[in-house]
């Protein structure tokens, strides 16, 4: 340890500042709920399916409760009180009746009824959480049977055809060709849908919809391939956008292994309301913690809009904040796929040394996290030959700095969604570099006081300065002022704000009750 000779005091100070900056946001998240958090509770309580127009019953049920008593009490008590009053067994049936307008919801006034409703809600959601626990145990079993990838970093490949039945053979082929992790990228519109689509889907834009059925189909296919190739192939999707909590719940239920889950991505890049995002994010991370899912954070995105050298410290700041929020939600270090990217302009002198300094800084700040290393996109010009060379250097930086998860770069980035041959060429590139230089990190020690060490120290110092300013200013104000990725996002604006409610004194959520107990 200690290739960069970082000052332990500065590192400690950075973490203290991240905690001070993050705590007010955690307090906010703990005192608010959202429509999506409540829908996730109902999904864990067993509500399934959608109406003929594709609107899920959980949406109908939450909307009906909200119209009668608001969101601030949580939906669990009104729903399970109504279930008892109506003499219905199935929550899904109650949702269907509520959608037809034939159920009225209320918070019971009598203590006994209230206690009974809470008990029933807890029993129902415990069943959902138990399923998640079973799926986690199943993963552990499969990993011990088939084994983990033989090398680090794990090789992460994206599949994105829009059609789940087209994705499956592509994902299986990618796994056979060496991919350890398959990510099914989502349709571009999905993050702004305030519901989770249902069923197997065959149409999407630049990606495939995240649905419970699509999750199940792909996981089953990759289980088959894991058996075939003799290593457990992990599946990734996206817990981001307006339905982050629900998608996290579905990922746990269907044994996904990694989820994209950034603390600020939705705010900055989708213009989702900051409070909505932080509330949804905390819940989704608690679910991920329970499910044993590795989260992937999205720091790479900052570098696609801001300059990768000037903004290098904002990546470090975001990683520290993501780490604080993740630990607070109960995630272990081994579940933190903190992100960063190879996005420095290749025409800049010493660009590769700068990349090494930044990548090594992340490695040393978070020694136990499986860091996610993201390939160049911004300076991929359509010159596929140069792109392949750049990807080779990206792969080299990844292995030289001990990154945990390597997203395979495509030379056709910015040209087309990857072709079969693009993926094959990209994997050859990775295999060559890992084969030729996989152990080079043992020999790689930056010169004491040299360029790489100095640059890493500078970025860390800048991160500490920025964190100090964020603590003074407040994280929400910093986001409003455009501190991250240039975008300005005030807390009273953005999509999904109308789905946020402050807790009433009697707010009850059996899932957060259980998950807070896990921490």
């Amino acid at each position, binding site marked *: 340890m200690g290739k960069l000779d970082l000052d332990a005091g500065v590192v400690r100070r950075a973490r203290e500042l991240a905690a001070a900056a993050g705590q007010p946001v955690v307090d906010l998240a703990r005192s608010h709920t959202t429509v999506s958090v409540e829908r996730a509770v109902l999904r864990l309580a067993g509500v399934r399916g959608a109406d003929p127009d594709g609107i899920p019953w959980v949406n109908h049920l939450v909307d009906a409760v909200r119209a009668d008593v608001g969101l601030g009490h949580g939906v669990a008590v009104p729903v399970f009180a109504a279930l008892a009053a109506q003499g219905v067994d199935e929550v899904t049936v109650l949702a269907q009746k509520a959608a037809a307008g034939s159920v009225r919801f209320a918070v019971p006034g009598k203590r006994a009824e209230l206690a009974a409703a809470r008990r029933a809600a807890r029993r129902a959601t415990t069943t959902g959480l138990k399923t998640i626990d079973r799926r986690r145990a199943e993963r552990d079993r499969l990993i011990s049977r088939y084994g983990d990838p033989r090398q680090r970093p794990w090789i992460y490949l994206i599949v994105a055809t829009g059609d789940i039945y087209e994705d499956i053979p592509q994902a299986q082929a990618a796994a056979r060709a060496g991919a350890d992790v398959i990510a099914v990228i989502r349709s571009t519109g999905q993050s702004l849908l305030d519901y989770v689509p249902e069923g197997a889907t065959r149409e999407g834009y630049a990606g495939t919809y995240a649905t419970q059925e699509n999750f199940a189909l792909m996981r089953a296919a990759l289980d088959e391939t894991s058996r075939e190739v003799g290593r457990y192939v992990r599946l990734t999707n996206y817990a981001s956008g307006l339905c982050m909590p629900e998608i996290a719940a579905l990922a746990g239920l269907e044994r996904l292994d990694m989820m994209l889950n950034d603390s600020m991505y939705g705010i900055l890049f989708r*213009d989702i309301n900051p409070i909505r995002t932080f509330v949804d994010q905390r819940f989704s991370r608690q679910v991920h913690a329970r499910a044993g899912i590795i989260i992937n954070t999205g720091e790479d995105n900052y570098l696609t809009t801001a300059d990768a050298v000037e903004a290098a410290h904002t990546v470090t700041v975001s990683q520290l904040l993501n780490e604080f929020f993740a630990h607070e939600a109960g995630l272990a270090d081994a579940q933190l796929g903190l992100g960063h990217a190879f996005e420095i302009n290749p025409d800049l002198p010493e660009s590769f040394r700068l990349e090494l300094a930044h990548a090594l800084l992340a490695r040393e700040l978070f020694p136990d996290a499986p860091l996610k290393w993201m390939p160049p996109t911004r300076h991929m010009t359509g010159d596929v030959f140069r792109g392949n060379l750049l990807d080779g250097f990206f792969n080299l930086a990844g292995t030289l700095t001990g990154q945990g998860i390597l997203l395979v770069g495509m030379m056709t980035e910015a040209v087309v969604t990857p*072709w079969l041959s693009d993926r094959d060429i990209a994997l050859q590139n990775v295999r060559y570099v890992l084969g030729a230089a996989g152990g080079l990190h043992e020999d790689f020690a930056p010169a004491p006081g040299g360029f790489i060490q100095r640059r890493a120290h500078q970025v860390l110092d800048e991160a500490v300065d920025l964190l100090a300013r964020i603590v003074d200013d407040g994280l929400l104000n910093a986001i409003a002022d455009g501190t991250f990725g240039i975008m300005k996002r005030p807390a009273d604006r953005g999509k999904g704000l109308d789905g946020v409610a402050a807790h009433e004194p009697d707010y009850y959520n059996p899932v957060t009750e259980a998950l807070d107990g896990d921490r």
Partner: protein
Amino acid sequence: MAIVRPYGDTTGDGMVQVSFTLPIPHDKRAEGAAVQLAATMGMDPAMLVHARPIGDGYTFFVVYGRVHHLVDTDRVQVVERDFPLLSAKEVNAAIKRRLRRRLTVVGACIGTDAHTVGIDAILNLKGVAGEKGLEYYRELSVTNMGAQVSVPDLVETARARRADAVLVSQVVTQRDAHLQNTRAMSAAFREALPAGRRPLLVVGGPRFDETMAGELGVDRIFGRGTTPREVASYLVHALVGDAA
């Protein structure tokens, strides 16, 4: 008039290189199929230089060969820049002198497209390739609405801000989304505002055909590699008029 053909290492050799995948396992017959395809594409002789199986049922090929097609560069149709390229200083001066107020620009990525890289490169102060974006121009008042903006929101904002020009970026092209979104946008502006009050409609993105402006109902299309300065110069040309 200039007649040209591809150049490998000798003038007139007509050499090109292509790569493609066929959905068949790699064997002698597959290699023959690749050569035949290249021949049908007009490569004669076609030399198969690389074949590699991908998975079970696919093979990737690289083929070099000679083509006999000619191109007459005088008969090539492109949209040439038909306006003078101005410096930032000249843009500001032209607006100040001839418009006598700031020129208002509203920009957005519309539809489900979340790729703000194009619109940001043109609008953000930061700009692209060392050239500052439109926010840097003192006489331009810029509103960047960001990604996934709905067409009605865009029209409303353009109206509220009395936009002189609306810039729309489209990167995602799956299922021709960029064309559909652009048509929907231009139709919405035509519906919402009379001809005289309609802002100048400009779209940009790496996969647009610059000759399609009329067909898509917009005033101008900018393709890949467009710089903020070109856009600013065009806005001056179209809205303020060129210097006499």
